[in-house]
């Protein structure tokens, strides 16, 4: 069993009468010659790493190697705990988790690239915040991870997830689409709604550039992961409310890839444009190489 694009994925879901997560699992079992038990074991391991990376910085802040980050996740979490969050529990929690993962990543801690290290906070941020709010079991949370991996696979296959090729829209944009789709399945949405949410999430970050200060995976990456979760939850909310998406995911992905290739080289991970080229950005990386 395999699918080359989102249209084929939807047909498979309909034919087999099962969610995206299940189709992705069957594909993996077929093509990688593995079993459901083995998949579950490996995905549980990924989930364990995600949980640790999301929560540890909330109480144990770490300074990044380049010195641009440290302690942001804790501040956001404290703000929420004091009952002052203006965006509500789920979003505030998701932001803290996502920023925490980036803090761990930038200080040489252990993370799961999702789909990349620079965008590794979005998927765990969204799913773990939903888990906490709705008391969802780990077993059920795995379905969201399987679902999101289907969206990420399509992006890797038919476009790109490399900032150097497509800008941040290919990293945080895709991560956000993955999280949106997984969140919709987790909250009871249909496969078509999942892919609508993925399309919306990608659409709303179209054109986002990759402009790391000092060339490091620190700033603005961490803040972009925060907007990645907000965008994913917004897209999922639209889809679950029954709001239709005009452009199918396959076409949105092609648009993202097209935009990415048209972006100037200085806006694709070279640290020569955007935030990286601002006076403050340049001043901040005196110690960087």
């Amino acid at each position: 069993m395999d699918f080359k694009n989102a249209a084929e994925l939807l047909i498979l879901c309909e034919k087999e009468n099962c969610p995206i997560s299940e189709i992705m699992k069957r594909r993996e079992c077929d093509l990688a010659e593995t079993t459901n038990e083995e998949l579950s074991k490996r995905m549980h391991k990924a989930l364990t790493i995600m949980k640790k990376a999301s929560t540890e910085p909330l109480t144990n802040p770490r300074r990044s190697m380049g010195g641009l980050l440290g302690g942001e996740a804790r501040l956001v979490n404290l703000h929420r705990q004091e009952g002052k969050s203006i965006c509500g529990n789920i979003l505030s929690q998701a932001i803290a988790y996502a920023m925490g993962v980036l803090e761990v990543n930038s200080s040489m801690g252990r993370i799961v690239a999702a789909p990349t290290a620079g965008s590794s906070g979005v998927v765990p941020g969204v799913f773990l915040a939903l888990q906490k709010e709705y008391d969802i079991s780990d077993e059920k949370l795995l379905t969201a991870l399987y679902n999101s991996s289907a969206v990420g696979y399509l992006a890797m296959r038919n476009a790109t997830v490399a900032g150097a090729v497509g800008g941040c829209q290919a990293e945080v944009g895709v991560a956000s689409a993955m999280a949106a789709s997984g969140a919709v399945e987790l909250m009871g949405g249909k496969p078509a709604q999942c892919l609508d949410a993925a399309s919306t999430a990608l659409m709303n970050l179209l054109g986002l550039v990759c402009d790391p200060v000092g060339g490091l995976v620190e700033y603005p990456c961490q803040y972009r992961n925060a907007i990645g979760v907000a965008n994913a939850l917004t897209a999922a909310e639209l889809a679950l409310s029954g709001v239709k998406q005009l452009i199918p995911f396959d076409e949105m992905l092609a648009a993202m890839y097209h935009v990415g290739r048209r972006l100037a080289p200085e806006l694709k991970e070279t640290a020569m444009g955007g935030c990286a080229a601002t006076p403050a950005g340049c001043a901040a990386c005196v110690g960087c190489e």
Partner: protein
Amino acid sequence: MSFISMFDVLGPNMVGPSSSHTAGACSIALIARKMLGEPVRQVAFTLYGSFAKTYRGHGTDRALLGGIMGFATDDERIPSAYALAEEQGIAYDFSYNHTETEIHPNTVDIQLTGIHGHAFSLRGESVGGGKIRISRINGIAVDFSGDYNTLIVVHKDRIGMAAHITKCLSEGMVNIAFMRLFREAKGDAAYSIVEFDGTLSKDVQQKIKEKKDVDQVMVIRIQEGQ
């Protein structure tokens, strides 16, 4: 098109901050360690391009050092690689080549000597998302991905060598994913590199080795430790 697994999307499990500059660097060095087949006594790294420019902020140096000590990409000992290498008495050296431009931007040369005196050199490229490519062994241009378990046969460039290797593999029920032959010049040293599915027994390795003009047989198990 090669298979994209769900664990290529949600993965690799890795120590940050960069899949190409940290995880990829570690994977290249880990392959070098596996090819050496014994603990490392001495190692010299030469970093090129973006590796040479931004290694410190990305922990590329520590990931490389961790890799040659046998650490996987998600090993939390990578940040302390310098201290651990010193504890193990490994003599290491880093140099940075900023002038060579006709090369993949994330390239490293690794020269290794093991505790029993076995020595060789390797060039690796980190090609994105933690994926890598080994592009030279002992100065000879080769090409393999490290995605599969890999058999490397060092032999003299003689007629019938590929037939000998494939015969041994088929008798051992080993399915070949990719196979390529690399050589410097006709009749000189050559490398047959086979990426395969599943496992390869010691018996099969021994059989391949028994033929005249086969100098060395190495098996790199990529899947172990996952």
